[in-house]
């Protein structure tokens, strides 16, 4: 999985030069949809529909007014949904990392029949599609009063535990026991051993699992849609989906501006930790 293991560079042949040019063109085309959205976020509503592919000109350019309209239009403030999205993503990811890494350590070190059962249930849960539990999960969350933004991380921990436990157990198995034994001989209890010796060693897997959970929770639509009362609490995907229904005729310019706003955190996240993201994705793919 190491992306760093490159082959020694040789001089480029003419074929490779041509390939490089071809990929430069393809890369531009690949990013075109994002460029089109960005471009149209500065155009007046009417022009977005009639001339989507034209650059903003003197007639159509409206500066940042789409952004100003965007954050206020509809019947729900955009920054409130952005706030809920950030809160739910951060707390859910933190909770998942803490709880499942502890659980994975227990499972691999104790290794009794109960731990094995829990482990195999976790592996099993990874193949179960969300539709299987969508009604009953939303219902359970409502009965247990977990249907609020502050409590939905518990639901995320429950449904997302499978992959996280699986990945952590895989890593803990490769950690030599001597360090933990030495800590135990020195008089450390399990909690201290875990947090001062094991947890720091889990860092690569913590990052991989963290990246996967952030991407999942941030982009998730159906789970918060079913669990939360969406007249009061919305996340960004719900907000974008409900722009249409809530306002009669859709202000396309404002929609484009909101899409740009929702892309900014993702792009920043990607630029800031691209290496970790790619590693995390590659690690998460190798389940099974």
């Amino acid at each position: 999985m190491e992306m760093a293991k490159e082959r020694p560079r040789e001089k480029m042949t003419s074929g490779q030069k041509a390939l490089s040019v071809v990929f430069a063109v393809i890369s531009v085309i690949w990013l075109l949809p994002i460029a089109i959205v960005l471009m149209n976020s500065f155009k007046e509503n009417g022009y977005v529909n009639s001339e989507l592919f034209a650059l903003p000109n003197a007639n159509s350019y409206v500066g940042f007014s789409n952004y100003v309209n965007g954050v206020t239009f509809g019947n729900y403030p955009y920054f409130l949904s952005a706030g809920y999205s950030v809160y739910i993503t951060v707390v859910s990811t933190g909770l998942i990392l803490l709880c499942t890494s502890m659980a994975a350590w227990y499972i691999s070190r104790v290794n009794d029949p109960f731990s094995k059962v829990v482990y195999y249930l976790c592996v099993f849960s990874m193949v179960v599609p969300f539709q299987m539990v969508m009604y009953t999960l939303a219902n359970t969350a409502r009965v247990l009063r977990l249907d609020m933004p502050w409590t939905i991380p518990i639901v995320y921990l429950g449904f997302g535990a499978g992959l996280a436990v699986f990945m952590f157990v895989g890593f803990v198995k490769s950690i030599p026991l001597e360090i933990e034994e030495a800590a135990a001989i020195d008089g450390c209890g399990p909690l201290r051993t875990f947090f001062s010796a094991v947890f720091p060693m889990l860092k690569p897997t913590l990052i991989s699992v963290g990246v996967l959970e952030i991407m999942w929770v941030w982009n998730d639509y159906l789970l918060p849609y079913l669990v939360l009362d969406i007249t009061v609490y919305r996340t960004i995907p719900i907000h974008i989906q409900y722009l249409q229904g809530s306002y009669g005729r859709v202000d396309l310019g404002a929609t484009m501006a909101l899409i740009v706003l929702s892309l900014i955190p993702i792009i920043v996240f990607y630029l800031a930790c691209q290496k970790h993201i790619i590693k995390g994705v590659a690690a998460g793919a190798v389940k099974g």
Partner: protein
Amino acid sequence: MSRSKKMADGALTSPLIRKPIQRMFAVFLLPTFVCFCIGFLWPFIQGIYLSVHSFTTTTNVKYVGFQNYAKAFADQGFRQAFGYTALVAAVSLVLINVLAFFVAYALTQEIRGRNLYRSVFFIPNLIGGIVLGYIWKTIIDSLLPVSMSIQANYGFWGLMVVMCWQQVGYMMIIYIAGLQAVPMDMIEAARIDGANGWKTLWNITLPNVMPSITICTFLSLTNGFKLYDQNLVLTNGAPVRRGIGQTEMLALNIAKTFSTANQRGVAQAKAVLFFILVTAISLIQLRATRSKEVQQ
């Protein structure tokens, strides 16, 4: 990894730390286990239980045996959704994997700027299905003479474009990892023996990246079957002909059935069938491709 073979089932343990950890069950394992029960285990069991009942809420339940399943099988919309989902999954599987493999193959050659190109290809994968769907719906609908929700053909190919844009970069990463693990001396030996580029690719590279192909086909197939967000945003199942959504996929069909109160039992039965289908495909797929891997 050789250390982990200490115990028969691959887990390392030591009596020195085992007992103290076991005593702290309530701190280490219990929180995750309780949440797992709330977020997965109980809803799953209740889901199977409810699939043989007629219900509007979980307190208003009547046993009906396999009637829900019979209704699900007889439902034209569900059958249409099954066929359409299989088509989407199959076509997208081929498109995504062929494109991703060749992009990965090209971007492991010595070309300038390949790291930048890799990053570019990966970006769409970070965008969630809803936002991604809106971006493409706007673009595709203004390129076409009629909207995707009027012409089912357009809806299908529109979905293919969206799925490729989102997943090619992801699969590319896995293929690149596989391609970089192909032993260089094998390729050089083939070249010296006079094999040309295509022959080397076919006889040396492909068999060696079989593990990556296993992972990617498995992922894109299950991704295709479970697709929901993009389907919802792009066409929401439209156009509807004789009450049947022409571009409605299984996940959307199930979600829509749940929203009708007196159909919830049927919806849950459909969900169980969907679960069995997805699990079966994953298992078959995994076994079929695993057997073709190079033994090392």
